[in-house]
Every structure is written in C-alpha cells, then in structure tokens.
C-alpha cells in the first residue's frame, strides 16, 4: 500500500493525516465532553444529545442570518456571540428537560435511554417544522474560510485550527468547572454519595440540574462549531450519537481524561485507516476494534479500581 508513494509524499501523508486525525479528534472531544459529563458523572443516557448539538447549530444559523441582516459590520465576530447563545439555549433546554423528565428517572438508567430517545424524535420533528426539512447553510466570516499553506502539498484549514483551539479551551474550562470550582466539587460529591451530599447541605436537585444543563450547553457549543465543517439538518444529530457513546464508554465512563484519550485513539485510527482503506471499511474496522476491546476490557481505557 505504500508502494505508490515517494518518501517525501509519505512524509506529507503522515503529516496531513496526523492533522486530519487531530481535527477529527477535536470533533470527537467536543461531541463527547458533554456526554461524558452527563453519562459519566450522572449515569444518565441522553440519546437526545445529538439534538442538543443541532440546537446549537440552528442557533448559530439564526445568529448568522440576524447579524448579516442587521449588523453586517459585526459579521466577522458574530461566531463568538453565536456560540455563547448556543450554550445558553442548549443549557436552558437541558435544564428544562432535566426538570420535567430526567429527574424522575435517576434510578432507572435504561429508562432514561428510552425517554430521551422519545425526546430526540420530538426535537427532530420540531426542527423540521420550524426550520424546514432541508439542510440550512450557515455563512461563515471570511477569516474562518481558507487555509494556511505550509508546503505545496500540506495546507492547514483555518476552521480546523479554530475547532482545535476551541476544543482545547472548552476542555480546560470543563476541567476547571468540575475539578476546581465549588460547583464541580458539589457535582462530584453528589455523584459519589447522593444522600451524604444532601445531608451536608448540598442542594442535590440543583446540582443535578446544573450538571445536566452544563453537559447540554457544551453540546450546544459543539453544534455551533460543527456548522463550520458539517451539515445542519433536523436529523444530523443522529449521525453522531453512536460514535459519541462509544467514545465515552471506550474511555471509561467516569473519566474525562479517558474520554479525551479514547477520542484520540479512535480518531487517529480511523483517519489513518481511511487513507489506506475505503471509507466504509475504515469505519467498520474502527467500530469493530472498539467493540472488541470493550468486550475484553469492559471498564474502558481509564477506570479506577474501586472497592466494592
């Protein structure tokens, strides 16, 4: 399979594929972080996660239209407002869903799966009714388009860099929220011992709601970022959900570091295989490998050995 290429070309291949893998990695991390919080920390299976992402994408779409029409001068930087709004919108919807649906189901994780699947159907149809069945295009400011040429073959897409930086910032942010803030401490306390946390004065209901909202909000940001590379349609969210769950489970559900590591492993494997095999087979092989490893090591890549 290497025979067709010269050495310089091979060098470029690995450089470019590495970079393609990094973009895929960022995408995976963005998708999975919100889910890792909700699933890993709360044990809730949110099958509507993809729809929260798409909500973020639609918010971005509305923003871009609004800004383009009313404040064309600000168009270059609208994306940042849009992301903030996407976070707020998805987070607010998340809080609402937690209040009306999820909080009744904490003891029945498999039932959250069914209920949130129902929710995802409703959201999909809602998007379809509001925005139409067709995909919508989000126009991007010019500085986000195009690429930086490194050599005559290697070019680095600007939106790829943007997504990577964004992922980095959000990952750091999540780390601080969960491990360095009071809210994070409370969240972890509730996860580890709900009764005790309640007894020492933590409002467990509020913590649950905030955690869920945070996870959904991050999904919203992810959706917003995806408008740069993917499509925004009512059913686009479904494309991501299985991959995302596999990433989180593969990483070891309770571990954020695991999520990041598994995103990295899966993205690099997939992008490398895509180069040498056909796209379909690369996908099948990647998923098969992940499932195979999970069968051998069900707790995922990273997990604490805990006393029972």
């Amino acid at each position: 399979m290497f025979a067709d290429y010269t050495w310089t070309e091979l060098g470029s291949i690995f450089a470019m594929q590495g970079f393609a893998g990094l973009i895929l990695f960022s995408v995976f991390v963005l998708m999975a972080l919100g889910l890792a919080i909700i699933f890993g920390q709360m044990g809730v299976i949110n099958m509507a996660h993809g729809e929260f992402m798409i909500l973020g994408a639609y918010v971005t779409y509305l923003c871009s239209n609004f800004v383009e029409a009313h404040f064309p001068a600000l168009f270059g930087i609208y994306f940042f407002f849009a992301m903030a709004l996407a976070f707020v919108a998805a987070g607010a919807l998340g809080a609402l869903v937690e209040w009306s649906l999820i909080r009744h189901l904490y003891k029945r994780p498999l039932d959250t799966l069914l209920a949130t699947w129902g929710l995802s159907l409703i959201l999909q149809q809602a998007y379809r009714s509001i925005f139409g069945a067709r995909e919508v295009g989000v126009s991007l400011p010019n500085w986000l388009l195009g690429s930086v040429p490194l050599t005559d073959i290697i070019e680095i897409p600007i939106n790829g860099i943007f997504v990577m930086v964004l992922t980095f910032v959000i990952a750091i942010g999540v780390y601080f929220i969960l491990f360095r803030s009071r809210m994070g401490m409370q969240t972890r306390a509730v996860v580890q011992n709900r009764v005790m946390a309640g007894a020492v004065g933590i409002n467990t209901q509020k913590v649950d709601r905030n955690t869920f909202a945070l996870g959904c909000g991050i999904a919203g940001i992810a959706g917003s970022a995806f408008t740069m590379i993917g499509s925004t349609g009512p059913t686009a969210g479904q494309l991501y959900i299985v991959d995302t769950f596999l990433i989180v489970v593969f990483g070891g559900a309770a571990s954020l570091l695991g999520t990041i590591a598994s995103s990295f492993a899966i993205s690099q494997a997939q992008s490398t295989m895509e180069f040498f095999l056909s796209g379909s087979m690369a996908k099948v092989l990647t998923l098969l490998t992940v499932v195979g490893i999970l069968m051998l090591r069900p707790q995922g890549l990273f997990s604490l050995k805990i006393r029972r």
Partner: protein
Amino acid sequence: MNTINNNTDFLLSIENLTVSFDGFKAVDDLNLYVDENEIHVIIGPNGAGKTTVLDLICGRTRSTDGSIKFRNKELTDMREHEIVREGVGRKFQNPSIYEDLTVFENLELSFPRGRSVWGALTFQRDQDVKTRVHEIAGMVFLDELLDKQAALLSHGQKQWLEIGMLLIQDPELLMLDEPVAGMSVSERKQTAKLLNEITKGRSVMVVEHDMKFVEDIAHRVTVLHQGKILSEGSMAKVQADPKVIDVYLGH
C-alpha cells in the same frame, strides 16, 4: 514467609493473602484459619478489610497474591458459583433476596438442584423440594409466610430469609456479614439462637460490630486493622489485648 505446609487439617486456610486497589492494600499478607465446626468472628474498625476478606473467599474480589484453600482446594482461581458449589455460602450485609418472588420461590431457587440452564428449565417442584423448603422455613421463622411476596417482609425477616436461602444449600462454610445489623433486640436474640442452631455440623465466619452478639456466639475472634491481624483468640483474650483497646478506644 512462614508457609506452614500445603495440606492442612483446617477447613479453610488463608495464607499470605493480599489484595490492593490502586496501591492501597485493603488486605495485607493475611493468614487466617478456620476449623471444622468453628464459629469464627472477625471484628475490627471500619475499613479494616473485614468484608473484603469475605469477598476474597467467595470470589467476589480477586486477590493480588496469596492463597485461599478450602478442604485443600485452591479457591482463588475459581469462579463464584464454583466456590458455592464447593460448599461455601455467603450472606451479604444488606439483605439480598428476590423481592419480586415469594418466600417459597426464594428458598426454592436456592435449593441446590437444577443449577444449569437446562436443569433449571426441567426442574420439577417435587416432594423433596417442598419438604426441604418447609423445613428450612420453619428454622428461619418464616413457615407462616411462604406465599408472601418477599418485598413485603420486615427487615429482620428478610435477613432470616437470606440465611434460610443459604441453609437450604447446606454449605460447609457459612459466611455472614453483619447478620444482626438493623434488627430489633428481640430479633437479635432470635437470630443468635438461630445461629447457634444452624452452626451444628458446619463452620461459620461472621463479620459483626455488635460486641454483645459476638460474645454470645464466637468460638474464636480475629481482630483486623488496616488489612492485617491485630489480635486473635478467644473473646476474653482479645478484649484484654492492649493493641485492640488502643485501636478501638484510641481513635
């Protein structure tokens, strides 16, 4: 290490047993022996590794090092149900019974026959089973409640039911994790009586906090502290041991 020999007369011999969780040694180079027909009680402060020892014996937790021999058979690489079939029974701290089933069905499921998939499918509720279930139910004070759904029993009755479920298996070694926790005073008395009754012809290991209860039943006591044996012997000897007093009172 002072490994004595490979074959012992003990029913259960634990030697150099170690288990560590991410570097933390919950049980550390433990040696412990249980005689035939002995009631052996393990006490110790919280986190001493008492429950972990029971978990290790019954295969729920895998050891890092060391051996557990039951009738000179190595248990450490056997799976849980195989260990049970060897004759080791285990009762958990919280009553673990099948709440959706009746008392009768709970006991019937524990009856040691038809344990394979096919066996369970072709299992017949014959006279043997019925007689044995009634007999055991009588022992654990539940003969009036056979048709009651287990979820509706009181906490103490659930504990008894679980003990009954072990008895019907007729194990040679019975391990009980805090059998009287959460029981009323009268229930404790009844339980002590029950234990004295059922230990005839078998060995029992008990983890317990209630010193009064321990005094009532124990033949031998082992005090665990931080995964290691602090003291061992009769109740009186252990109670007089300054190390034990230090651990219990010094904290």
